[in-house]
């Protein structure tokens, strides 16, 4: 069973993503901020990380930057999910760390996200 880590501080998003991924047969683990997300990622080595950008404690950009420092982190698939504008400074730095996808939550459909996940975890 493929393992997905959700790193998201907005509980309604976290809850819905958990439900939908669970229904689709994935094992789901979750964290409310980048700091917990980073430690969970290094401990559990999920196959894919759904990563929010604006979060307390540690933002998604910093988590991604830290994660990319070792061999697991360099190869893990990451979908950055945000509601920030693409020209936001944080987003520019996020893109520098090469996520698999960068998606604006309010602009995409939930089904599109699930399709992208299936594509990355065949």
């Amino acid at each position, binding site marked *: 069973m493929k393992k997905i880590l959700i790193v998201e501080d907005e509980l309604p998003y976290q809850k819905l993503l958990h439900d*939908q991924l669970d229904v689709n047969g994935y094992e789901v683990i979750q964290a409310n901020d980048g700091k917990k997300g980073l430690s969970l990622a290094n401990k559990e080595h999920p196959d894919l990380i759904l990563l929010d950008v604006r979060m307390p404690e540690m933002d998604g950009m910093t988590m991604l930057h830290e994660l990319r420092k070792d061999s697991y982190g360099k190869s893990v698939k990451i979908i950055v999910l945000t*509601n920030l504008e693409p020209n936001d400074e944080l987003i520019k730095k996020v893109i520098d760390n090469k996520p698999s996808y960068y998606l604006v939550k309010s602009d995409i459909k*939930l089904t599109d996200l699930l399709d992208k996940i299936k594509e990355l975890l065949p």
Partner: protein
Amino acid sequence: MTNKTHILSHTIDTSKHENHQGTVERNIERKLEAIFDNMVEGCQIIGFDYRYLYLNKAIIKQGRKTKKQLMGNTMMECYPGIEKTEVFANIKTCMEKRLHINMESEFEFPDGNKGWFELRMEPVPDGTLIFSVDITGRKAADKAKSEFISVASHALRTPLGISKWYLEAIRGEDYIRTAPKIAKNYLSEIYRNNERLLALVRNLLSISRIDQNKIKDHPELVNIVELIKKIIKQMSLIAKKRDIMVELKLKGPKVPKIFIDRLRLQEVIENLLSNSINYNVPHGKIELILEPIKDILYLNITDTGIGIEEEDRKKLFTKFFRAQKAIITNTEGSGLGLYLAKSYIEGWGGKISLKSTEGKGASFMIELPIRTKHKQDKQLN
């Protein structure tokens, strides 16, 4: 009469005329200098060797050096490194190619401070004439405005995006027929986010009115004791859910009715009380103390919640600011409530301050001037 040729000599003494012309020119020069010196716009003439030849008062202020330090010296001597800037490149172009140049530029002073300037460069016989306006304030306001739009759009997108995905899930999976319990749960989430969105829009409109000085107060005589009791009653359900005790204490003489905008005062107290509930610990306490002293009514709201870190306290009353701990405890706040509360209270001539120890709760002190209708009428007249 003999036909002799006479040389007629006529001498006119022009020294007086020349003196007069010189006086006129000197007068014009003095007047021009006075005009230039008192212009709001900075004005300077740079010679072909990049030495300062003329500087008015405004440019001295903008340049953050004395006239003595600048006059007769080169730009490079006065501002080391200036030759590498875009401003210098444009002065050089204006000087050498005799071109008019307009530009906006950020300039870093030797002390590390920065300022934005709007510059107009004109070629003149002595070198280059530069008019400059300090637009640092305008640039800061533009930046704040675009940051506000960016933060506001993020804040609006979040509840909208949440509702969009929940609706899609309910519709796509036909949960209403196949899993009505999940559907009901998801609909509650959508409803909550819709409420959150409406509250955010209301707050954004209030902020826009404050920024444009368009807040219209509708003062009336308000019994603040009754108003607080009503608010406590309204919020008792949420407080009970979290097992938080809310208590109102009256101190000192009888609290008089005050002349104030009832709805806005209610908004302020609701905001503070809901913060005290949302950021409290389970089984916590909230105490509201009302005390009139002379012509000031003091309202103190103290809770036993998570408290506010020292660094966050300075920014707490600014637009969209949310303390890290607040985000973890309650993800749905907009960061606008305290900004609005402060704006309203200060608009009424009052004050709001905060005392907090991290982890040991927060205490907000509101001071409201006690006004009667009579006094307000007098003020309006």
